[in-house]
Structures are given as structure tokens and as C-alpha cells.
């Protein structure tokens, strides 16, 4: 199966600090991949590079066959990204976020139905016209997932989508991941919550100090034995 996400020798350095240290990553269509690891392992930085927020220091990155560095705007049309922190314009409403996304992604008339459906599923329809500055952390996370999935991207990048989210919100996120996977999208989920990562994804990559230390089916990290293995990967 052809790779929808492909990174080769990906390195991101902030001065002397190397956040991502030359690793390779391949995610085919219809695959859900969990990026797990400790704080500072390079998970969020990797997703930022794939989303076109942060240019890599060295290495090549492509999404849906498009070079993210050379054609960032084209690549952005294929990607939906939920950032790890915030992600919302404080004095704009959810509906205004969706309006802007529809304009910038040239979605054409009819986007409103999809927008209302997503807001409803994430229990945000009632607050669709309130500014996001008043949102709780969990509401903000749910809205960020809505924005990432809104245009049914070929690559869905979710950074800590379950952080502070209630069980119904987690369920809605799981549904969206499953739906997009079923339509052929590749989904990458970065999270500290191992159980949810295992539940959401088929494959898992364990990062440590900017390097891949293990890549395996997510089921191998399930249960007590999986957790023990994960712990040993983080500390060995």
C-alpha cells in the first residue's frame, strides 16, 4: 500500500536542542498510528512538521505525495491538524472558525451541513456562536478536533486530542478517527494516554529523545504486559 505520510531522516533542532533526531516514518492510507513517548520525546514537533507549521532542519517530509517543504500550501490542503495546546482564536466563535476554514479551503456551499453535524456530535452546537475564550480546556480540545476533521483530510494529525476531554468527547473523537480511516485517510495520534492510543490506533511508534525506539502493532502495548513493555522502552 502506498505511503500517505513519509518522512526520511527527519531532524528538527532548536539551536543546540535536537527535538527530532533523524528518524524515518511511513504511514500508509487507512492506517491509524499512535505516537507515544515521554514529554520532550519529539511527538508534537513531528506532527508540527507534518502539518507544515514548523519546517524541518534536515530531511524530507511528504504528505499525500506532496513535499511539505517545497509545496507547503498544497500539502496543507490534504492535512487536518489539531495542535497540542490551544489552537483556537480566542475572540472568534466556533462557527467563525469553521467559516474561515471553509473559505480558505475553498469548500464551497454545503459545508454548513458538515459543520453542524460535527459540532452536534462533539456537543458544541449550543455554543457555536460564543467566543472560544470562555471555553473550558476540554471544549477547546473537542473544537480543535472538529476543525482538524472538518474538511475530511487525507491525513489527520491529532496532538493530545483526549487531554482533559470527557468520555463522550473521547467517544466522538474515536468515531471521527474510525470514519476518516474508513474513507482512506491516514491518522496520526500523539498522546500520553496509552490505553486510548491503543484503542484508537492499529500501529504505534514509541519515541524517545527524538528517536524511534520501537514500532509495533498497538495491541502489543495493551494491557499490563504492554504497559510494562512501554515503560521499559521509555526508561531503558
Amino acid at each position, binding site marked *: 500500500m502506498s505511503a500517505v505520510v513519509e518522512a526520511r531522516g527527519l531532524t528538527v533542532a532548536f539551536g543546540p536542542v535536537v527535538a527530532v533526531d533523524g528518524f524515518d516514518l511511513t504511514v500508509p492510507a487507512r492506517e491509524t498510528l499512535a505516537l507515544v513517548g515521554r514529554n520532550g520525546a519529539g511527538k508534537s514537533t513531528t506532527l*508540527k512538521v507534518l*502539518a*507544515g*507549521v*514548523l*519546517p524541518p532542519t534536515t530531511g524530507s517530509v511528504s504528505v499525500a505525495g506532496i513535499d511539505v*517543504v517545497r509545496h*507547503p*500550501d*498544497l500539502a*496543507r*490542503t490534504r*492535512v*487536518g*491538524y489539531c*495542535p497540542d*495546546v*490551544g*489552537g*483556537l*482564536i*480566542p*475572540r*472568534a*466563535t466556533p*462557527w*467563525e*472558525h469553521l*467559516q*474561515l*476554514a*471553509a*473559505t*480558505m*479551503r475553498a469548500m464551497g456551499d454545503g459545508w454548513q451541513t458538515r459543520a453542524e453535524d460535527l459540532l452536534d456530535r462533539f456537543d458544541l452546537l449550543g455554543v457555536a*456562536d*460564543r*467566543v*472560544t*475564550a*470562555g471555553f473550558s480546556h476540554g471544549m477547546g480540545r473537542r473544537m*480543535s478536533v472538529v*476543525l482538524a476533521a472538518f474538511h475530511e483530510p487525507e491525513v489527520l494529525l491529532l496532538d493530545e486530542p483526549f487531554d482533559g476531554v470527557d468520555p463522550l468527547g473521547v467517544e466522538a473523537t474515536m468515531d471521527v478517527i474510525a470514519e476518516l480511516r474508513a474513507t482512506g485517510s491516514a491518522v496520526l495520534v500523539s498522546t500520553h494516554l496509552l490505553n486510548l492510543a491503543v484503542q484508537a490506533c492499529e500501529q504505534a511508534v514509541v519515541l524517545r529523545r527524538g528517536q524511534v525506539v520501537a514500532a509495533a502493532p498497538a495491541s502489543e502495548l495493551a494491557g499490563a504486559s504492554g504497559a510494562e513493555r512501554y515503560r521499559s522502552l521509555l526508561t531503558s
Partner: protein
Amino acid sequence: MTAPGDIGASRQLVALLRLRWQMIRSRPLRGAIAAITVLPATLVIAGLLGISTLPDDQSFNLSLATPTFYVGFLVLAVLAPLVSGGGYELYPPDQLVAYSVKPATVFRGTLVLAPVNLAWMINVVALLVITGFATGELAWGPTSRALLTVTAFIGAITIAGHTIGWLVMGIRQSRAGRLATNAVGALAILGGLLIFWTDNVIPLLDNSPTTYVLLGAYDGYQGDYGPWLVVVGSLVVGGAVLLRAGDAVTGWALRRPGDHADRTSSRSLPRRRWSHSVLLSLLAMDHASVWRSTPLRRGVLVLVLVPGVVSAFAGMTWQSLILVPGLIAAGAGLLFGINAFTLDGAGSVWLSTLPGWASPAYLAKSLVFLEVALAAVLSAFIGGSLRAQPPNATSEVTAAMMSALCCAVLVVALGMRSSLRNPHRADLQGPRDTPATPGVMAAQSMRFALVTTFTSLYFALLAYSGAWWIPLLGALPVLLLSALHWHRTGLAWAHPHVRASVVQTVAGG
């Protein structure tokens, strides 16, 4: 009462100031801030030396108007903290929640930061120079005593202004309080208009209590120590009492449960019509970010209304109208323009993942910034021109117009460059939120003031030509240089590394 392990407000303030200084990592910025602290004293000395060359009869004429200048300062010292909900803060409140910072520390911090307000600083320098000249020939001892008098006045009035600012901020935490303060504000405006239309402005100013401050300065200059000490002592004691009152009022205001922010964020807003245009959509988003922000909304209204009204009432000359827009444009730049991308806040990361966002976003931010700057300078220009004395030449009119336009454009070009070089996370939600740290605000205000003052002086010189087209021609290089500066900043913004750095910083770094 101080508990064991607790330190007083003054020591807390020193610790917070020291930390703020340590947080300035840029050496040039540290240098600029250090220079700014000595600049006012330098300007006062230079001003005194310069003004002392004027004939003695000018000194007498100026002394007649000096109490009016004091009244002007009084109005400013009350209005500025009122608009900013008590004054500038050393740190955003959310950064200090883990520490037991006393309300008195917060209040005194706002006093320490009063000089960050460009208008306050310019007025202080002007008052000292005017008083020094008005009291008599320059002499070390006598002039120092006169200046000490006006310094005590400036201190007491600044403390009073900030105390009133915090008091009103506390009162406005409830709906009834907001209604009451709005009513008082409306009555004050009506009273002002009534005084103006009944030709009572001059008699009122002639009987202003600020005359006693000038008389105290005279006593100090002439060595009449008894009356001088009464005036200075009254101002110092009054200032000390107000300081204690300010400590208490700030504590009360901060303890009040506020409903204003909750009201704003829990209200459903009407939906805008959807636009296919990327630029129009981004402009609508940026307009909303300005108008839905308490400090920005107040700042824009004050910048647009106050200079216009004051210029209209003042009956200025066209030469003065050439000089006024510069400082107003500088004020507009400090509203949000020095850190324009902070309008998007945490949403900037998501925005940067939208295809084709970068260039229109830069243009939209610049246009919204330009709108505010132009609205402020044009308001002053139009207000001033309504009652201005007839111009000596048409070149004065075109020079005033070009000065307003060029200062606004220059400030936008400089502000957008600063937005890229010194991005900063700022919520701009609370009434005291500022777009940058106090140090950066001070450095930028001085930078804007210098550039716009020189630009205004340039047009004042061109106005002497007498030919209406000379200022128009003179505006071309200023506008072209500004456009070039803005374009080069846009090219830098197009660079992914620069953009990533700005986006990450304003989003939360």
C-alpha cells in the same frame, strides 16, 4: 500585618522588577530601556537650556498658561489609568496566581509603569521644562526647588489617577456599577460641553487650584521656604495618603467577583455572512479580535475620540496640527501593532495550517493596524481643522494632511517589523493587558515617538515653503520608504522559519 516568611509590598515589587529585568534577554533591548530611563532627565535639561534663550516676556506669558498645562496633565493622569483599568501591570495576572502577590504590590507596580505611557512621559517632560522657564532665569538651587514642587505635583496626581482607575475598575465589576460610571462619564462630557458653550473655559482655568502649585514653585524659586514647604509638604503628604488609599482600593477591586468577562464570553453572537474572499474573511476575523477585546476596544475609542475632541476644543494653529498626528500615531502603534499577530492568540498555530494563509494574513493585520492609526490621526486632524485659526499658507494644510498620513503609514511599517522581531504571547482580554512586556512597550513607545516627531518636524519645515505641493512631494519619499520597509518585513514573514517562530510564540511560547 506581615506573617512569618511574608515580605512587604515594596520588597515584593523590587523582586518582581528584578525578575522582569532578568527576563529581558536581548542586550540591545536592555540598552534601550537603560537609555530610556535617563532620556527624560536629558530632555528636561536640554529643554530648559533651549527655552532659556527665549526673551523674558515669553517667560511671563508662559507662566500665565502654566496652571492650564497642569490641568491638562491632571486630566491625562486620571484618564489613562481609567482607560486601562488601573494602569499597566508588570505581569499578566495568570502568571502570578501561584504567588501571594499583595494588591499593594500590584498597585505600586502600575505606578512604576506609568512612564510607559508615552503621553504621560511627554507631559511630564513638558511640565518640568515649562515650570523651569516660567519661574525665572535658570539657576541651580532656585530652579531645582521649583522643579521639586512640580515633581511632587506629578507624583501626587499620578497616584490619584491610578487610585481612581482602580476604584472605577472595581465599581464596574457589576452591572449597576457600569451603569453608574457610564452615567457619571456622560454627565462629565455634558458638563464639559456646557462649560465650553457658555464660554466659561477661560474663567474656570484662571481659578484652577493648580495655580497654587505654580505659586509654590515660585516660592521655592525665590527662597520663600515657609509657603514653599507648605505646598510641597501638602503634595507629599497627599501623595502618601493616596498611596495607602490606592493599596486598599486595589485590594477591594481585585476581590470583587467580576461578571464582565463572563458576560462577554457567554453571550451568543450573531453570525456573519460567509464570504468566499480570503482577505475579507481574515479582515473580519481581525476586526472581531480588536472589537471583542476590552483593552483594544477602549484603546481604539479613546485614540479616535479624545484627540479629535481635544483638538476641536483647543482651537489650534495649523502649525500645531502638523505636529499632533505623530504622537497620536505612536499611541495607535502601541495598542496592538507592535505585536499584531497576537490578535490570533493560540489560534495562530491552527491558522498557519490553512492553505494560503500567510500572505493575506500579513496584509489583513497591516490593514487593520492602518485603519486604527489612520482613524486616530484623521480624527485629530478633522477635529483640529474645525476650529483652527486660518492657515498662513495652504502649505500648512497640506503639510498637516501629509504629516497625519505619513506618521500613520510609518508606524504601521515599524510596528509590523516589530511584530516579527519581538513576538509575545498576550491575551488582550483583561482591561490591563498590553501587547508586549513593559520593557518592550517603553522601548517601542520611545522609538515611535522619535520617528514620528522627526517626521512631523520635517513637514513643519516643508510648511514654511508656502507652496501647497511641496509637502505632497515631500511625503513621497516617506511613503515609499515605509512601503519598502513593510514589503521587506512581508518577505521575512514569507520565510517558514520566521513565521513558525512568530506563530509558536504568540500561541503560547
